[in-house]
């Protein structure tokens, strides 16, 4: 048991490794031989048109959904066929932010944050309360958010609260499903900033599904493009722009893509000027 733990802790090499993933629902093939590698410490953005299976890919990696064929390794462990104990060992090392937060509606925000702590560790209530306090603060929520129920929160606050729960166990790997969808541009920019800051401070690896071009430009080290049932390319945006594929060209060079790119360049220029 101890040896197993050390194994995961000291795991070198890619954090997520997907090889030849096939997902089929009846007649419909979503993924056909999909490969993707996520390295330690990087923020990888996953984009693709509707129905290209971004969420299915994430659910396959998380082990929430069984896939037709292929191999998925997370921290060097296969997600299929793990023992119960081993699976828990892997699970406590990643946090997930679902698209709509998926906060438990019968618990307050602070209690939501404490759920994973209570589930995985024996801890005094006092310590758990203190931990919930700074976790909630870490995601930029004030102390007044703690005793509130999810239904009393705005969309942006709910996402932050869900992020606090995802961070409760100090995961090494964070999955984010459209974290900025439904947020206003100011809140979305703040959320991007928050994720970038946290990933730097905690050495997080982030797997991020998004349609938000600004997020892609601001925080992602690499972007994986899902199209034609596979990962078309996984590279920094600058390199993606060189690829001659109609969807990629349209996605990044369409009016919104150009605007986001211009904003990024302007930002960089401003930073260079002040430096």
């Amino acid at each position, binding site marked *: 048991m101890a040896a197993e733990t050390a194994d995961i802790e000291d795991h070198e090499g890619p954090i997520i490794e997907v090889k030849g993933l096939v997902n089929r629902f009846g007649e419909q093939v979503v993924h056909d031989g999909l490969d993707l590698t996520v390295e330690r410490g990087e923020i990888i953005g996953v984009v693709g048109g509707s129905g290209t299976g971004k969420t299915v890919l994430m659910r396959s990696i998380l082990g929430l959904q069984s896939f037709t064929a292929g191999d998925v390794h997370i921290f060097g462990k296969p997600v299929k066929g793990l023992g119960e104990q081993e699976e828990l060992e892997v699970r406590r090392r990643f946090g997930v932010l679902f698209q709509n937060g998926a906060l438990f509606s019968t618990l307050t925000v602070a209690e939501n944050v404490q759920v994973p702590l209570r589930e995985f560790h024996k801890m005094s209530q006092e310590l758990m309360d*203190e931990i919930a306090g700074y976790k909630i603060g870490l995601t930029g929520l004030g102390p007044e958010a*703690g005793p*509130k129920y999810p239904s009393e929160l705005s969309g942006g606050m709910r996402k932050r609260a869900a992020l606090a729960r995802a961070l409760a166990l100090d995961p090494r790997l964070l999955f984010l499903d459209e974290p900025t969808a439904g947020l206003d541009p100011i809140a979305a920019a703040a959320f991007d900033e928050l994720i970038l800051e946290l990933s730097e*401070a905690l050495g997080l690896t982030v797997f991020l599904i998004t349609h938000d071009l600004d997020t892609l430009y601001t925080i992602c080290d690499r972007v994986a493009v899902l199209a034609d049932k596979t990962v078309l390319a996984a590279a920094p945006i600058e390199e993606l722009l060189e690829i001659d594929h109609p969807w990629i060209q349209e996605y990044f060079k369409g009016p919104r893509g150009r605007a986001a790119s211009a904003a990024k360049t302007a930002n960089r220029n401003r930073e260079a000027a002040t430096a």
Partner: protein
Amino acid sequence: MGEATIHDERTDEGRRLTLHGRLTVRFIEKISPRLREMEDDPVPIVLDLKDMKRVDTTGAWVLYRLIENRREHGYETELAGADDRIQGLIEQVGKANQTVKIRPPQMQRRYAVLARIGGWIEGGVHQFGTFLAFLGMTMLALVKNLRHPRRLRWLAIMRQAEVVGVSALGIVGLMSFLVGIVIAQQGAVQLRQFGAEVFVINLVGRITFRELGVLMTAIMVAGRSGSAFAAQIGSMKLAEEVDAMRTIGMPPIEVLVLPRLLATTIAMPLLAFYGAIMAIIGGTLISWLQLGIPPVTFILRIQEVVPITDVWVGLIKAPVFGIIIAVTGCFQGMQVSGNAEEVGSRTTAAVVQAIFLVIVLDAFFAIFFSVLGWL
């Protein structure tokens, strides 16, 4: 390997704590109390972190708590051998640190009881008021639509009548048939003691037409359709479909409530009559098998002993029960707002209230008809 350990030594200047291993959320429970104890030690403490393998935010926060609480007491703490990452982490969690209430503030017990009673009363009065308003709106819409029958949505009415009535034939028939069997069989056991088995026919005939056919059907329709009305309309409200209708200019009462109301009102007497017939068939069968009364005799006797007013009593009650079921179901559905949980609780409320009201009204009807002399 793994767990964090503290090496504690006294030096000339004070105490030197050397930490080894991993200071992570996993091992925090053992370390946290030990560090808490040191908060009250007035001698200067040096925290040596150079042999730490890994510190996560929880670990950093425990260190922050130690340093901060000692600083408040005016004691000195020095961090040694901490790299930038750990320093940064401690700074980050320090900024994030806040005391958070876990649950909303709670009232004192005796006040809480009073508050709850008050809440019930307020809720009940409010509910009654909105129900009356809903009933009024429905009646207005009904009158308006009956004056211009072309405005009625006949297609929707027919579709609802099919769901409420035709689809229920199987279950209502089976249930009534079985109830008929039970009444005849139990009646026979009792009446045999007086040698009056033949009165089973009176028993079955009168009770099914007058009471049980209608009542059992109403309960089944409330469970099947009243709940469905509440759930359907409730989820439509959640998905903002009802609001969408309003903006398009389709009054939800006319589009959603009236067809269900009319369909249930039409279907209930038909179902109730059919239920009574099925119960009589059940009674006939058991009388034939157990008492040897031939079916023809049974049917002929029914005509003699069941006054036609019994049939009218059943047929008058049935549409009224239908109205109650449809109105409570639709009303509860329209009351849904907020989250999905409410659809469930409103659906439950619709069924419970409908059945309760049906039975209360049935009692009133019993008195009413006896005053009329329809015994």
